[in-house]
């Protein structure tokens, strides 16, 4: 009876105690089959402990229902480990079959992971395409494009910068470097002021000259735009600069040409006026010569005949009439004389829309 109790106690110790001897108590080893039973249970206990600690490669030695069940569990865990590794490598086709709720949970996890990874992959692809598009635009546009953080540190600067500024991009660390380092001495102060103003107004839109290291001068048009987050706070700035040297040169040439054209137009206008005046004067001269030529002779006849009449007729009765006739003849002679001596054609209004030639003394030079 005492021996039976020791057998039960030895087996209970194997099942319940933390530390159990690998060997059965000496006094029980003589019981037939007990040594083998004790060691089998001890091995089974060791296998359970190993599995509970995640050690899946421990060899389970033993046969029978309990050992078989434990091997089946070990096999399932090893298979799940293998499947989980495949899932972690991106193989979402892995499915667990016939393991009850665990199968459902694992398969749902794999499905959700596949969906999430698919979305991530799609997003990554779109992002890559977007970046590629941005890169192509930025690297192929003639304008210089850059991004800087809110402290002014350059995040991205397009390759065209080197072509415009003629210095390596690596030399440019900040926006101040970019805009002030080679600003022309005539413009640098205004650029500095505009940059200060940009901090308050968020507006920078300026044309200024830059002096390159080979002493050549270019003109650039620069625009800065703030980039804000959802809260309206500036997180970055985007800048774009265009080399407008040729445009400015063309503008200057165009202005020069316009001035020249204006001058030429004035000259032409003056010439035209002179031609008109000359033509008018020639016409007047011809008219004057004609008038003098055609009218002087009748006037001489008039004057001669008036003298004859004055001698033959009673002076007292007709003297006043003769005087008036002589005065009229002298006035006609005077007009013919003025026409002969006129310098320039000046018109003066006669009546309504009708003009007449100004033959006043100021215009004819006669006094």
């Amino acid at each position, binding site marked *: 009876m005492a021996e039976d109790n020791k057998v039960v106690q030895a087996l209970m110790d194997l099942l319940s105690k933390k530390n159990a001897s690998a060997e059965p108590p000496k006094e029980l080893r003589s019981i037939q089959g007990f040594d083998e039973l004790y060691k089998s249970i001890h091995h089974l206990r060791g296998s359970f402990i190993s599995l509970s600690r995640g050690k899946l490669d421990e060899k389970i030695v033993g*046969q*029978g*229902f309990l*050992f*078989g*069940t434990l*091997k*089946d569990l070990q*096999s*399932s865990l*090893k*298979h799940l480990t*293998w*499947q989980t590794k*495949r899932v972690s490598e991106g*193989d979402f*086709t*892995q*499915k667990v*079959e*016939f393991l009850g709720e665990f199968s459902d949970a694992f398969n749902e996890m794999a499905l959700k992971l596949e969906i999430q990874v698919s979305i991530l992959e799609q997003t990554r692809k779109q992002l890559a395409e977007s970046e590629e598009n941005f890169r192509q635009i930025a690297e192929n546009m003639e304008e210089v494009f850059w991004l800087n953080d809110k402290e002014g540190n350059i995040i991205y600067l397009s390759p065209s910068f080197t072509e415009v500024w003629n210095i390596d991009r690596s030399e440019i660390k900040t926006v101040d470097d970019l805009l002030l380092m080679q600003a022309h001495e005539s413009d640098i102060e205004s650029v500095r002021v505009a940059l200060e103003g940009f901090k308050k107004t968020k507006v920078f839109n300026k044309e200024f000259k830059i002096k390159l290291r080979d002493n050549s001068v270019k003109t650039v048009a620069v625009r800065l735009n703030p980039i804000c987050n959802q809260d309206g706070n500036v997180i970055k700035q985007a800048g774009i600069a265009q080399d407008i040297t040729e445009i400015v040169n063309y503008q200057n040439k165009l202005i020069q040409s316009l001035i020249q054209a204006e001058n030429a137009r004035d000259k032409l206008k003056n010439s035209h006026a002179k031609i008109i005046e000359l033509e008018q004067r020639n016409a007047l001269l011809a008219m004057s010569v004609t008038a003098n030529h055609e009218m002087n002779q009748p006037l001489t006849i008039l004057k001669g005949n008036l003298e004859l009449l004055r001698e033959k007729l009673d002076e007292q009765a007709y003297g006043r009439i003769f005087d008036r006739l002589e005065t009229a003849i002298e006035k006609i002679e005077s007009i013919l004389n003025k026409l002969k001596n006129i310098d320039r054609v000046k018109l003066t209004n006669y009546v309504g829309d009708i003009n007449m030639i100004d033959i006043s003394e100021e215009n004819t030079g006669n006094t």
Partner: protein
Amino acid sequence: MDLVRKYKFSWDLIGDLKEGRPNLGNKTRLEVYRLMQFTLRDVIEQHFGPEETDKIFFDAGFLAGKEFYKNVMKPEKELNAYIRQLQELLIEFGIGILRIEKADIEKGELIVTVSEDLDCSGLPDLEHEICTYDEGLISALLECFTGVKFTVKEIDCWCTGDRTCRFACFSQ
């Protein structure tokens, strides 16, 4: 002496089941399958002894694996996809539940298990492994995929008191 073949296997011998079994279809009771296998094994053993019987069953399993690969499986280039397809087909055909414990195809080492195996699950303890047909089948399926010959040995079996059949596979 050349052997005159009378029973050379071809997939045609599976027959047209829809035409041949319009009512019973492609289903049968597992007992019938096992009845045929174990009576056949018995008779072969009586004629040729246990070792030769095991060899015959291995070779038959190997032939079955090659034909199954050729006539049922779709070509795959990637191991995981191949295993996934095989798992699904073994379940679909009711052959067993294939699980992978280890697969290092570069070293040519795999440990696979087949639970609820067609040949042995539920058999009484026999104190020896019995799934030699499965060994041949698995060997052929691995060889067809990799192009390399594989040695496959069953190391745990339902019949040895284990609850699953475990196979160690090594490339030759």
